[in-house]
């Protein structure tokens, strides 16, 4: 498959038809519901189908529940011993591969950091046959004796659920035995749910159940927030922290980039939850509100405009003149440098096209950065999102609970008897809403996409190639598994899970990094070497004329 010269215009209906033409009828029917032509009246799918089973045999980008739980949510917390109960592979593959940066610096050279370690019970055949609880118990004891951590988290892999190891009882007993170490478990077997998304939910539940609220100590700071759904990939969180510090905003906890156990334990002492990645963390945001009275707003620190907007939203919430002024000063100070880089880069990127297939917020968040460079996103979609991430949270009441979602526990949370304290009165909330500050609101990706663009859920390898072949984007963004097949087609590819080796791309400095990176990718001469001179003009002359 090769990419021919650029088409000027394409017909989305025709492209959709071509994407599914080769499928067996059942597969084609299912995929048709997950491919949406934006705002097209003739579209037979007014709502997009998402968070449904992956089709066996169709090469998917998705991973599993364990990856979402251990890899995404719990991986970036440095002082928890994350012990994987299962055969060795799951622990091995999640070992340092996600580029979550962490800085134990503030705690000094003795600060705890277990992230460079992989811990596993390395289950063997006899454990599968006779049960692995004894081995798990012994492994927890050995980890405790070796490291004396404040917390040990256990992650179940596929066979654990199948053989019925009661990991929650084992951890409860070990916690009681130790007295000074919080031990708990995640039933995040890979087969649960339909993607990583189920793992996020399971992680949210257990963090909320076992850690949040453990430390009531009131931390200093006037404007205290939690940043939810930020994972410090490539140092994104460091840049956001820099901006918060400059503005005088105190981040009590980040879920979960550059985080510690104590941050989670103290999360209930913040006064606002700012939600970055809606998909992976909205459960915690809702539960913090119900139990402790902390409202949440949607923010986005990807893109300079989005960063400025998010800072203004936080300042508006606290309704403090000094903070509002400080935020404006910081934005005024940071923006000129960003705009200068954007203006320069735009001379080369204006009008170029991009495709984004990643995560369940990145494919949305990164569109702002491309817009700032004058680029158009012609197709986008999520790997593991739900309908609300596409269409907005107003669809949540209409979501049908299928067999796969029903298996994921929904925590029932009540207001805390002593610690529930609404941070704003109903009147204050109403006034802020009247002033345009939306609470618990996320409009999703679709409203931000142009007419006739293609929105595709759970894009697979075959469709990715077809899409690139038919629509010829100037850049394609996805993950490591997709990277090199796209590049072989001669199309630049940027990983938006791990950023290749780049970053940060969040905040103001991150925006400049991203402009420069996309400029490099879309304007480099290295893509011109694909054909050798004799392939470009293969005609042989009768005799070579020596000069």
């Amino acid at each position: 498959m090769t990419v021919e010269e650029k088409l000027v215009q394409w017909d989305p209906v025709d492209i959709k038809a071509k994407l599914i033409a080769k499928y067996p009828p059942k597969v084609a029917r299912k995929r048709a519901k997950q491919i949406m032509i934006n705002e097209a009246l003739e579209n037979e799918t007014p709502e997009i189908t998402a968070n449904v089973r992956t089709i066996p045999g169709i090469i998917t980008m998705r991973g599993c529940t364990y990856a979402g739980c251990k890899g995404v949510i719990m991986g970036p917390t440095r002082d928890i011993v994350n012990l994987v109960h299962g055969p060795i592979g799951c622990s091995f593959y999640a070992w340092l591969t996600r580029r979550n940066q962490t800085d134990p610096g503030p705690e000094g050279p003795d600060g705890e950091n277990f992230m460079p370690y992989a811990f596993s019970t390395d289950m063997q055949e006899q454990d599968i046959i006779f049960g692995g609880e004894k081995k798990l118990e012994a492994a927890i004891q050995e980890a405790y004796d070796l490291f004396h951590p404040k917390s040990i988290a256990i992650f179940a892999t596929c066979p654990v659920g199948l053989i019925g190891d009661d990991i929650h009882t084992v951890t409860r007993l070990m916690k009681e035995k130790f007295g000074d170490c919080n031990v708990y478990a995640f039933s995040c077997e890979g087969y649960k749910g339909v993607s990583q998304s189920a793992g996020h939910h399971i992680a949210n539940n257990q963090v909320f159940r076992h850690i949040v609220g453990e430390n009531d100590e009131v931390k200093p700071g006037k404007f205290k927030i939690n940043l939810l759904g930020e994972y410090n990939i490539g140092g994104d969180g460091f840049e956001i922290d820099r901006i918060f510090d400059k503005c005088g905003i105190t981040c009590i906890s980040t879920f979960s980039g550059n985080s510690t156990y104590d941050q989670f334990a103290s999360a209930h002492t913040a006064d606002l939850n700012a939600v970055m990645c809606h998909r992976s963390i909205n459960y915690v945001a809702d539960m913090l509100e119900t139990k402790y009275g902390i409202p949440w707003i949607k923010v986005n620190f990807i893109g300079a405009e989005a960063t400025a907007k998010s800072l203004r939203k936080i300042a508006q919430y606290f309704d403090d003149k000094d903070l509002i002024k400080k935020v404006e000063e910081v934005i005024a100070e940071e923006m000129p440098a960003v705009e200068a880089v954007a203006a320069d880069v735009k001379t080369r990127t204006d009008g170029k096209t991009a495709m984004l297939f990643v995560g369940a917020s990145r494919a949305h968040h990164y569109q702002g950065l491309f817009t700032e460079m004058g680029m158009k996103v012609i197709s986008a979609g999520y790997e593991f999102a739900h309908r609300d991430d596409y269409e907005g949270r107003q669809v949540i009441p209409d979501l049908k609970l299928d067999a796969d979602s029903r298996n994921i526990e929904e925590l029932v949370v009540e207001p805390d008897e002593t610690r529930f304290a609404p941070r704003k009165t109903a009147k204050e909330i109403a006034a802020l809403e009247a002033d345009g500050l939306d609470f618990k609101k996320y409009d999703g990706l679709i409203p931000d996409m142009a007419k006739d663009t293609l929105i595709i859920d759970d894009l697979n390898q075959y469709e990715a190639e077809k899409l690139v072949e038919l629509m010829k984007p100037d850049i394609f963004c996805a993950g490591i598994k997709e990277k090199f097949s796209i590049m072989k087609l001669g199309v630049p590819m940027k990983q938006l899970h791990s950023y290749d080796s780049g970053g940060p791309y969040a905040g103001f400095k991150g925006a400049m990094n991203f402009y420069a990176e996309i400029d490099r990718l879309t304007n480099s001469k290295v893509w011109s070497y694909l054909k050798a001179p004799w392939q470009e003009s293969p005609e042989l002359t009768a005799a070579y004329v020596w000069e």
Partner: protein
Amino acid sequence: MLLRHTPKEVVDRKALMINPAKTCQPIGAMYAALGIHGCLPHSHGSQGCCAYHRSTLTRHYKEPVSASTSSFTEGASVFGGQANLMQAINNIFTVYEPDVIAVHTTCLSETIGDDLPQIRKKAQSEGKIPEGKYVLGASTPSYSGSHVTGFSNMVKSMIDLSESTDVKNGKVNIIPGWVEPSDMEEIKRMAALTGVDTIMFPDTSGVLNGPMTGEYKMFPDGGTTIEELKSTGDSIGTLALGEWCSADAARTLDKKCKVPCKVLDMPFGLKATDRFVDTMRTVAGVSVSDELVFERGQLVDMITDMHQYFYKKKVAIAGDPDQLISMVEFLVSIDMCPVHIVTGSPAGKKFIKRMEELTEGIGCEVNIKAKGDLFTLHQWMKNEPVDLLICNTYGKYIARDEDTPFLRWGFPILDRQGHQYFPTVGYKGGLRMLEKILSALMDRMDRDADDAKFELVL
């Protein structure tokens, strides 16, 4: 310090593995299957396994790695994965059109007891496998063995395709074991130089070190073809490189088609390469080419020229059993002292015994562990520091903390390039290995030398 919690004192652990020096079977099966031309590896389990294996292989080779999965959900895990696999086979042959699907199991499908041969038979009888196409199957439970076992099991399953027609094809089968595509290419080149006609399986050269042409081929030009795999049953013999990686397949072929086999060490370093070349010469009844003799001479030249830098230098090394045997032999042969040796694979007494024989008489105490981990290796290094660490990329955390020169070798290498393109097998590969060892040691000498003792010529 990155591994700041690793204590010097070694305490025996019975249940907790820390910083593994192995991973699970299915990834080995996937790598082996990529060495068949026109093959789509298929992971029969939950989709996370497949995603992790593809990601790890992609990060190592920097090449597309296509593989599909049965995408088990909770329902499939309870009721069995047959329906998922049947559907997958149909979808794969319709959409991707491979010549062969190489299915491997996972801990999930093994624990629930899915019967691969039965499902395959059902797919066959229901016409889900098109005429002239094949489905291979290997049982690769993650809870036994290691990635090496998975590789071996998938190679063994390839013997399913071998046929004997009673007419010998005059070829020698070579099973290269889990080595780089560049190594497979080099082994073929050496065989060709020796004048031996070979069938190599699996063969990932041209698959996982392909060119950039503006064209994406889901099934690249490289790989052992189905015709070649069929023909292995008519070969005059099989050379299996590596007891753990390759012997099972060779013995299975011997049993099935009466193709005699010889199990050799992987040709890393002078002596193992000598044995490999000598065996090829003998089985094919030819004399060794002048070019190979010349290359051997160059390797010996480098060894003797640079001997002062190797002599008595202590090395810690982690890797897979077959690779370690030849590499430790190489290190000892140039008078280096491998003092800490770890494999994560459960290679057992056979491995330990071989290691003890190879390191006998080096004049140092030697720590050897099979089913070990990098945590233990690091602790040994804290107690007995070394001049060089040889390990996969994960070794860089140890090397940084202990300020030890570091050479990346093995799987996975996630942070340096070259392994896909430049072999470490054979005489040429030996030269490259020595170049890397010397660079690591000499960079350190340069870095640490006082101004007064800083040397121009080394």
